[in-house]
């Protein structure tokens, strides 16, 4: 399963730059990134090449962070590509907490990260329907 790093970030000037600077300093490569924000705080979610090292570095620097399991799914880059996946999950009564897409510069398919409430169940379901669910290693090496 793909490990995503989630970091609590207060809405303060320069705070995001501090985090990304920290990753740069330790040579950690950001593969995907998304930020959910509210009036007071935000949650930064990211995929990196070495999540175990990264979480150590981030916590060491005084951030509150945790690791969350997410699914990385290859979705055909055609109209309805994502809809098909969401239909499958909805039929199986699996709700999606959030999703965001990979930062990619080439390729004919989109890579989407899913946070669902029943990760393993969702993975089995999607695999059984021939959806390309990427392994953790595949994602970290992208």
């Amino acid at each position: 399963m793909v490990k995503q790093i989630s970091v609590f970030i207060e809405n303060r000037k320069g705070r995001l730059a501090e985090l990304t600077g920290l990753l740069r300093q330790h040579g950690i490569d950001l593969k995907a990134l998304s930020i959910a924000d509210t009036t007071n705080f935000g949650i930064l979610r990211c995929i990196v090449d070495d999540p175990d090292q990264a979480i150590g570095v981030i916590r060491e620097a005084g951030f509150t962070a945790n690791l969350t399991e997410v699914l990385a799914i290859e979705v055909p880059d055609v109209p309805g590509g994502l809809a098909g996946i969401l239909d499958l999950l909805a039929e199986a009564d699996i709700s999606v907490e959030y999703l965001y897409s990979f930062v990619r510069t080439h390729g004919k398919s989109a890579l989407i990260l899913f946070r669902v409430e029943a990760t393993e169940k969702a993975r089995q379901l999607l695999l059984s329907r021939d959806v390309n669910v990427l392994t953790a290693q595949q994602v970290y090496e992208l």
Partner: protein
Amino acid sequence: MIWNRARECMDRPQLGQLQTERLRNMLGSVYKNVPFYREKFQQRDIEICDIRTTEDIGHLPFTVKQDLRDNYPFDMFAVPMSEIVRIHASSGTTGKPSVVGYTQKDIATWSELMARTLVSAGAHRNMVVQVAFGYGLFTGGLGVHYGAERIGASVVPVSGGNSKRQIMLMQDFGTELLCCTPSYALYLAETMAEVGVDPGDLNLKYGVFGAEPWTNAMRREIEAKLGIRATDIYGLSEIMGPGVAYECEFKNGLHIAEDHFIAEVIDPETLEVLPAGEKGELVITTITKEGIPLVRYRTRDITALDPSPCPCGRTHARIGKVLGRTDDMLIIRGVNVFPSQIETLLVEFGELEPHYQIIVDRVGNLDSLEIRVEVSDALFSDEVRRLEDLQKLIAREIHSRLGLSARVKLVEPRTIERSEGKAKRVIDKRVL
């Protein structure tokens, strides 16, 4: 005006005699009926008969709020429960409140003290008195209520909150005297301005304000905005409730009802009794209370005693306006709040060592409370909804325990200022 001239203006030597007599009776009662005091006296080899005058009071042990909690709920009571007709409670530093019980006679005494307070503030029997202190376990509402009834005024027990209704009742009932916290009085003045009511068109003439510290500057503001005479009232539930001390028309200190209480001021560090005029912690012994008499109760309030004669004719000594505390208790909108209460609550949310900060401010004359909580790994969730729910749940829990609405804000770890490794728990921005 003076409600009880015989008592309030009693000769000091006569007053001293009365105090001695009452003190000895009271000590006899607690020795006989309260195991806590009997043990304390025995441990210190104190014989009641050795306490001959009020001067000897210094030999007696102190009582602190913790003693009330240790004897929760009723073990400090000096009479059987069949004699108790009323129970009040105030918040404590941890879960359990401190509980006080009143006999029928205690309620009569309390009503008498509040009658003195209200009459001193300008009340009389042909007057509508609006009580906007909270009614309930808090002593404010009911304390004032009984005093106002005692003098025969027409009491409106509206309790706190709902400002527009408060103003409507003032208009329609012709309220002449208002009782509430001073910050609420200012808030009402603002609400009047908002809804277009001119205080000059009201019948309002007097205000009795207390339950939280306030300055003379605030008094001038209230008097100017509402066009009334504002007087201060002091009390605490452990001793009686409101009416323990009250201002007269000279507004130069609060007369402490010395026929019912013996007041001392001590150095909170050395516990030595300080001479008149010196600032220290107010210590009160109740000498007529039956339900829960207290010996040398440490109020934690900082003030000084002034026994000099007052031009109003009252002989009872005065205490200065109480503007500080010797502990970390905060008074927010009239509610006693200890930082440890917030801490206890956060521990229940899964925080072993919560780092938090209490920020109190006065916004538009009403106290505002913000709690900043550092998000630890234990509290953190990757989902926005959960974190927002957490803020709401903490706020709801604060409201249900303290009766105060608070804004809860999650902040990053180590963002709360620490001094010598300990976080600075309280920032009180209110200017007093």
